């Protein structure tokens, strides 16, 4: 018997490797600063212009308050602001969680059963063409001022993008990969679990990030037309009281919630699919 001519890949000595790693890390940190700085500087610049204009032109604060005034007033009303924020957060969390779970179930079933996919797809698309402006007040009429109409509206708005992202991800599975699994003796569900589902994760997270921001908007919209509490109803009452500064305060909070959710899902996706981000970094 011959010994196979293996070629063990040459690896540099440990010290050299450590130094290279440290260098690479410094480089990466610099690179990251350079990458994210513009994204922070741009909105700060806009705020600066806004501030300069409103104070220089002495604009009526009920029309357009200065950014500093918004922050100041928001801080003064922090107790009530927090109560409204908590309500909106609760609705978003409940609605979005339900939406994700149901979307996952439906997408998996639609992927595995062709007839179900053909039956549901047109309705799902149609559901996206329903104007939220029209349906939200009806939901209040049907289901009252409580949690339910908010959750339903969030599901209606976010469900479809998640399902579509998942279905696209499943469909993008290489046929050869499934054939390979079949020759190994894999059953249908094994192929789904081992290849189709993990392969769809990147697409799924893209869908999740987009619909998370929609979820916040949907919650606020539902509150705007009728609620006991929440950022939406707070915006509405503040506007009626000519408290434009508090309207902007509420907008700021909702924007912060959206961005946080967006980033949070990004962090989760890095945790769930480290291989995906690593493979994109390498050439």
């Amino acid at each position, binding site marked *: 018997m011959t010994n*196979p001519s293996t070629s063990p890949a040459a690896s540099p000595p440990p010290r050299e490797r450590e130094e290279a790693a440290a260098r690479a890390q410094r480089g990466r940190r610099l690179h990251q600063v350079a990458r994210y700085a513009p994204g922070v500087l741009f909105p700060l610049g806009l705020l600066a212009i806004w501030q300069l204009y409103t104070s220089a032109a002495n604009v009526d604060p009920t029309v357009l308050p200065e950014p500093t005034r918004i922050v100041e007033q928001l801080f003064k009303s922090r107790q009530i602001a927090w109560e409204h924020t908590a309500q909106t957060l609760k609705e978003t969390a409940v609605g979005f969680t339900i939406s994700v779970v149901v979307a996952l179930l439906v997408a998996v079933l639609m992927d595995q059963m062709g007839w179900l996919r053909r039956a549901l797809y047109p309705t799902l698309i149609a559901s996206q063409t329903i104007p939220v402006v029209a349906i939200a007040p009806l939901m209040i009429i049907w289901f009252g001022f409580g949690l339910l109409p908010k959750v339903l509206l969030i599901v209606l708005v976010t469900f479809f993008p998640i399902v579509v992202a998942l279905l696209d991800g499943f469909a993008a599975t290489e046929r050869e990969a499934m054939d390979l699994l079949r020759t190994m003796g894999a059953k249908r569900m094994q192929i789904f679990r*081992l290849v189709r589902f993990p392969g769809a994760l990147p697409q799924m997270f893209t869908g999740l990030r987009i619909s998370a921001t929609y979820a916040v908007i949907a919650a606020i919209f539902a509150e705007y037309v009728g609620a006991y509490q929440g950022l939406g109803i707070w915006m509405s009452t503040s506007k009626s009281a000519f408290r434009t500064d508090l309207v902007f305060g509420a907008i700021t909070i909702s924007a912060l919630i959206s961005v946080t959710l967006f980033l949070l899902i990004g962090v989760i996706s890095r945790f769930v699919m480290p*291989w995906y981000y690593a493979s994109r970094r390498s050439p």
Partner: protein
Amino acid sequence: MTETMTPGLGASAEIELRGVSKTFRGTASGDVPVLDNVDFRAAPGEFVSVIGPSGCGKSTLFRLIAGLDVADEGDAELNGEPLDPTDHPVAYMPQKDLLLPWRSVMRNVTLPLEVNGVKRAEAAARATELFPLFGLKGFEKAYPYALSGGMRQRAALMRTVIQERPLMLLDEPFGALDSLTRTEMQEFLLDVWAQFGHTIIFITHDIREAIYLSDRIYVMTARPAQVRMVVEVDIPRPRPLDVIATPRFGELEAGLIHALREENQQQEASR
């Protein structure tokens, strides 16, 4: 499944196809006959290559043997018994390495064992024995993106060998590699084969690759593929790399080039 570590690795099988035909029906260009009355045989432990114009139906032949497609006509026998594809007697290595990017090399290599219900610890133990042989020791936890092309192919080959199937189908496994890596992989494959003694059926476009590796070469015609000729490669083994410079190698190569060129012209003409 085998009880000890290696006996299955050494098993080999005889495969015989008689009068196999296959037509793809209802494609965009109508019914396309792909295989026409093909006879094919590989003896236990034999290394047989299949060569022919591209698109001639070589891969279809593989899909039939692997049970991914069903022949319209003809018989297939494995060790004298009718071939039952649901038994999965064949380990298949496709053109692309198809390593799953979300799995480490170890988890990729043990995937076929996992599919068949082998416990993770046992699967890992079996794979660990093979890693040094495939030059991947130290890369067990690496992810595929971090590997070179040659390493990826070795991992894919390892995933094929670990299945302990008596018959291995390799579909142009080195087609995408640069020529130096390719030569290394050819030598490597011969070493693995010498060690385990599988029956190997190997699809390639590369005439030299076919001669260097094989005991026998089936030359297929343009589509619908028939067997145009069968060439016995009577060059003794082990074959050093410089065997390609010997007169006998040259003779075989000239004969194959001639046959393939005619078939390629046929294929072009029929388009």
